[in-house]
């Protein structure tokens, strides 16, 4: 049996080599023809067809994407009206979508799509693109490319608003608020969607500068902070093992964005409440799991440091020292970090 298996796999190996040899010949013929046409700047239907065939096999071949765009600009679009060009672009977007579905992480494909959308932004259906992103999120809610693409699509929409609307600032603030609510939706669906937390931090910075009337939680930095604390607190109790929440909580209390515009006393009160909240959670975690939740301890030490810097109470320093000792013991991989932290207070 062993021999037969070995023999079979040799046959399969040879068959693959033969098949590969044929594929290689075919691919190299297409490639050489296309590259010669690129060198001679022969922009016609034959060149376009060649790029279609090559990109179907090898979407990473960026020179061929460039050639394809050259053919569009110098041949396909030549002498056509805006509407006619728009029709071609719509068709091309379908071709790109098929490739994107097969290769959702290929930079060049996303890039080509963005180029198409920006060719004549006034005619682009930006909302259709937002719908498309939902499809990618359904497959992978943290697809990096899809999130970046979403920001680019919104930027495109906003550019249109700037050109067309009478009160662009208002419409843009509304759009930002809608995106903010979208991150709430994504977070409620899955608390560990770090990409959503990230986007939320960016939108908060924008909305604190300009927000629509209905967004009452944005009336002051204090209001924003209080409502974000509520969200992150609930999230922390829902899934205390997930790092997203703790990273976000760290930003709220230590990032400097909120501290600058909030009265010292109010901020100290919020810090004290949070310290109590995290301590409570740390206890629950220890009881339930029989071991410490590192994130609770790490966050606690950061919160206590902020509190100490404001109140200079000695007992806080002692608490921090105790926490550091425990962290070094429980998380020895990062021992030097904790030592540095303690030294720098």
């Amino acid at each position, binding site marked *: 049996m062993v021999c037969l298996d070995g023999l079979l796999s040799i046959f399969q190996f040879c068959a693959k080599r033969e098949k590969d040899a044929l594929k290689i010949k075919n691919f190299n013929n297409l490639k050489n023809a296309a590259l010669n046409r690129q060198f001679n700047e022969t922009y016609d239907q034959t060149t376009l067809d060649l790029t279609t065939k090559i990109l179907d096999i090898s979407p990473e071949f960026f*020179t061929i994407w460039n050639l394809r765009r050259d053919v569009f600009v110098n041949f396909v679009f030549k002498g056509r009206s805006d509407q006619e060009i728009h029709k071609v672009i719509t068709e091309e977007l379908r071709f790109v979508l098929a490739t994107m579905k097969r290769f959702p992480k290929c930079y060049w494909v996303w890039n080509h799509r963005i180029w198409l959308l920006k060719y004549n932004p006034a005619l682009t259906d930006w909302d259709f693109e937002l719908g498309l992103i939902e499809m990618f999120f359904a497959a992978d809610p943290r697809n990096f490319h899809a999130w970046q693409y979403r920001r680019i699509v919104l930027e495109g929409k906003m550019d249109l608003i700037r050109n067309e609307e009478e009160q662009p600032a208002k419409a843009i603030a509304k759009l930002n608020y809608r995106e903010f609510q979208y991150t709430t939706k994504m977070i409620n669906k899955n608390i560990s969607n770090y990409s959503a937390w990230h986007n939320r931090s960016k939108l908060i910075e924008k909305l604190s500068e300009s927000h629509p009337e209905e967004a009452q939680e944005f009336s002051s930095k204090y209001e924003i902070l209080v409502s974000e604390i509520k969200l992150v607190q609930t999230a922390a109790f829902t899934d205390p093992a997930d790092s997203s929440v703790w990273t976000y909580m760290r930003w709220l209390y230590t990032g400097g964005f909120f501290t600058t515009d909030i009265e010292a006393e109010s901020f100290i009160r919020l810090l004290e409440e949070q310290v109590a909240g995290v301590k409570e959670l740390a206890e629950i975690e220890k009881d339930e799991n029989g071991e410490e939740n590192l994130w609770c301890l790490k966050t606690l030490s950061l919160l206590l440091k902020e509190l100490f810097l404001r109140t200079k109470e000695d007992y806080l320093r002692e608490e921090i020292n105790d926490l550091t000792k425990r962290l070094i013991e429980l998380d020895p*991989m990062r021992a030097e*970090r904790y030592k540095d932290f303690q030294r720098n207070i």
Partner: protein
Amino acid sequence: MQLFREKHVDYVKNLNTKTDQLEYWLTEHLRLNGVYWGLMALFLMDSQDAFVKEEVIEFVLSCRDPKRGGFGPYPKHEAHILSTLSAIQILKLYNSLDRLGSFKPDLVKFIKDLQLPDGSFQGDRFGEVDSRFVYTAIQCLSILEELDENIASGATDFVLRCLNFDGGFGMVPGAESHAAQAFVCLGTLSILGQLDKLTSKKELISSWLSERQVANGGLNGRPEKLPDVCYSWWVLTGMDILGCLDWVDHDKLRQYILSCQDDVTGGISDRPDNQVDVFHTVFGIAGLSLLGFEDLVPVDASYCLPKAVVATIKKFPYEI
């Protein structure tokens, strides 16, 4: 476990003989980058003679795109900033920048023309912007000793705008943090001598980087993701640049990298028992070098070139 040095040298040496495999031909768009990765792995193992210097230089020069002035990843491919850096790095490794000869002015112009008004760089004439391209362009100009105040301040501003709430860096301002982006952004600031701009954020950035180490010792690229050998490089370099390399466990990381070796074919993969490739091979080895293990040639964290090579590059800002 130990580093299978000879096996890795053989693996890299034989990469160019796999012409009967389809994958070989489908990766032409990365060939010049691949040559740099292979050559750099050999340099770190002090085995650079496994490649024929003159053949490699001839290949590099054949990748020049005469229409654009930069280098493509393969003859007749279009110039891109990524392959252009590989070309310059290879020539620098061989101490052969003089081979650029009369091509140099067009090459410098190609790179400088890619900078956009906001200080960022596009990868080629079609407008894709990414902090990777900023780093790549800045390293190119640094090796060629063609940086200037204007280029540097634009690039610095752009890279600082990529810093996020969590202490990581994104592809562009607004984009989510990713370890590869931490390397390129910190590398840019380091090459330009602008690290003091980060002083108030140093602790936050270092913490984010140190959180990348997971229980098995490997490093991941984003929170809640699997570890991967190449992040040994993207994460460790940032820590080295910021002076907090000891914030992760070196021995555990070493074990993780070594466990990703193929003890039969040589080469290193992203995770244990996966298919090896030259990309993970060089960054695994470079990570080990940065940690001072396995008696490797010391590597520079900002350039991914041997320290001895970087020592010959004029430091920016240039003395007049």
